[in-house]
């Protein structure tokens, strides 16, 4: 794949640089240069691929570590009566690890109440179902899907998605992409997609309300899961760009941008068409601007 050894730039800074270039091109004299923006979007795609690969590798390593630790604990505290509680603990810990991981990344995203969601995330146990661990049935370092890690409101007070600012935790902006019919919600600095996390019963994630055509517990629709996963990742990179302009860009480009992701060779075949299609979402949006 892409050699990252060519120089010491990292994927994250490339992503932010590329987004700034696209943003600046909107005010350039002579109008938006289609050619240049197309090339920038290729760099963006390449950087995302590398970044997400690194991220998954890191998360997988973390999860492996957690599982090893859990097994060790189990061996030490073997008590058949406590198995259920331990499972819950295990889940909490891995979720917390995941959330801690993601929260630290997502929390700084988009500068909208960043500290609060991060804090919520890190407490782990206070969250009943927002964060989901990596589903890793086959111990595959690159699982075929990933649930969106969405910070939701405390379960006691489920948020009305359309009431902005109805509480400290609930600050949502909903964007509907007319081309892909995907609803995007930006909440408390998180960028995530309203979709269901219907893969298996292990996750305690609440099913989100699906509004337009997003898949509902359909495991076969891999591209949609890819998109959801990629959508969740959108919030990961944006902590490096801390202007609200960039956050606007991400929310606008979110649904198209997610299609740039293709993580595995087989997924690439499925997603390539979407990747190409979504690559053009940049162009479409750029041209529209």
């Amino acid at each position, binding site marked *: 794949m*892409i050699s990252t050894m*060519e*120089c010491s730039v990292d994927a994250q800074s*490339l992503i932010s*640089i590329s987004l700034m270039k696209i943003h600046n091109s909107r005010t350039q004299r002579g*109008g938006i240069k289609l*050619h240049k923006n197309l090339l920038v979007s290729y760099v963006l795609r390449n950087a995302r691929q590398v970044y997400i690969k690194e991220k998954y590798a890191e998360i997988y390593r973390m999860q492996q570590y957690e599982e090893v630790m859990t097994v060790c604990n189990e061996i030490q505290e073997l008590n058949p009566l406590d198995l259920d509680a331990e499972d819950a603990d295990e889940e909490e810990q891995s979720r917390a690890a995941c959330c801690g991981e993601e929260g630290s990344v997502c929390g700084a995203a988009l500068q909208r109440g960043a500290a609060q969601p991060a804090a919520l995330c890190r407490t782990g146990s206070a969250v009943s179902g927002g964060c989901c661990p990596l589903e890793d049935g086959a111990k595959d370092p690159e699982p075929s899907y990933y649930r969106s890690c969405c910070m939701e409101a405390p379960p006691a007070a489920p948020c009305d998605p359309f009431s902005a600012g109805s509480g400290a935790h609930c600050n949502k902006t909903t964007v509907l992409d007319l081309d892909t019919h995907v609803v995007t919600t930006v909440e408390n600095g998180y960028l995530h997609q309203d979709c269901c996390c219907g893969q298996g019963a292990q996750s305690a994630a609440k099913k989100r309300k699906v509004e337009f055509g997003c898949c509902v517990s359909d495991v076969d629709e891999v591209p949609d899961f890819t998109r959801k996963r990629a959508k969740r990742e959108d919030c990961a990179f944006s902590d490096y760009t801390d202007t609200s302009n960039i956050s606007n860009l991400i929310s606008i480009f979110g649904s198209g941008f997610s299609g740039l992701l293709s993580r595995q060779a087989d997924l690439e075949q499925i997603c390539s068409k979407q990747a190409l299609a979504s690559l*053009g*979402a940049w*162009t479409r949006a750029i041209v529209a601007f």
Partner: protein
Amino acid sequence: MAGPGGGSSDVQWCFSQVKGAIDDDVAEADIISTVEFNHTGELLATGDKGGRVVIFQQEPESKNQPQCRGEYNVYSTFQSHEPEFDYLKSLEIEEKINKIRWLPQKNAAQFLLSTNDKTIKLWKISERDKRPEGYNLKEEDGRYRDPNTVTSLRVPVFRPMDLMVEASPRRVFANAHTYHINSISVNSDCETYLSADDLRINLWHLEITDRSFNIVDIKPANMEELTEVITAAEFHPNQCNTFVYSSSKGTIRMCDMRASALCDKHAKLFEEPEDPNNRSFFSEIISSISDVKFSHSGRYMMTRDYLSVKIWDLNMETRPVETYQVHEYLRSKLCSLYENDCIFDKFECCWNGNDSVVMTGSYNNFFRMFDRGYRQDMTLEASRENSKPRSVLKPRKVSTGGKRKKDEISVDSLDFNKKILHTAWHPLDNIIAVATTNNLYIFQEKLN
């Protein structure tokens, strides 16, 4: 061994002239954006970012200095394009001249096409060296005489006057391009020409301004599926039915207009497979072709991408027959070049008169020549320091290894603001025009 346009191994290049302001503070309008010799080499046209065209004319060789070919002096200057505003799209249209192409001369006047991002114009450049004198009803200064004061009649006669060069727009070809025009090319039939933007190529007749035919359209039905754009296009020098266009993906398509009205299906596709070892974040950018030029013979074509020049045999589509590295030492600097936008620079390339040598520009005001026959390359510099008349240019070298030899320049001390994007080679002689940011350098072969 060295004849006109001969191998660079025999040729030594001398400084001849430099045109343009000396001061380092470059006005943006003065930035040269295109350079083109006419078909005889007598005229040299430049376009700049301010929308102006300056034409230089070569003086006839003087008997006093037979060693020197004639100098180029300003022949005509005119404002070709003005900035415009597209009210519908709220877009400013730059007046920068993207390309100039000369028409073959048919009569006393010269014609050229100049284009900015949206509009192509046909200019007539004509000389006036006589004027009529002796009107009956007009004074010499143009005032009308009272007819009652006329007592005798005379026939007006032409008398010599100081040479005046007039440039007048004869045709304006507008409103045919949604995207930015990157190329124009005059057909060998001398009646038609093509104009290419990012997604479409149009065919025009030189006499007809209100109609053009779309011959290539790569715009997808859904813009989300866009993966490549057209970067350059050119007509074949001899076959009036053939043209090529290059893409941002590093491919060149050759089309035959006899096959169908819309040439979306290429007759030939020239593409070299990517080397997987060289894959990087910027692979797509550096493989984008910035210029394509047919050889004078029509047998070969040359393409320029960010790091190399490739010569293609039109009979072989699978790979180029020759590849020349322009500045391979930049491959490890691509991320910095991406940050400062230099990676998007569009370098042009050109052939010499007999297709034996090709030339292209680089950074630090360096330009490179590749002799195809002798398999030699040379790096020269266009700078004010080397501007003594008839001083021989010394070949330059960029040191890539750890140890820098004397007179070599390290990669880190290259000035990336000093770039040579536009070069032109006289069609018959060893005279080259090299444009730095705002200066035009003319170099000639050293004649003994």
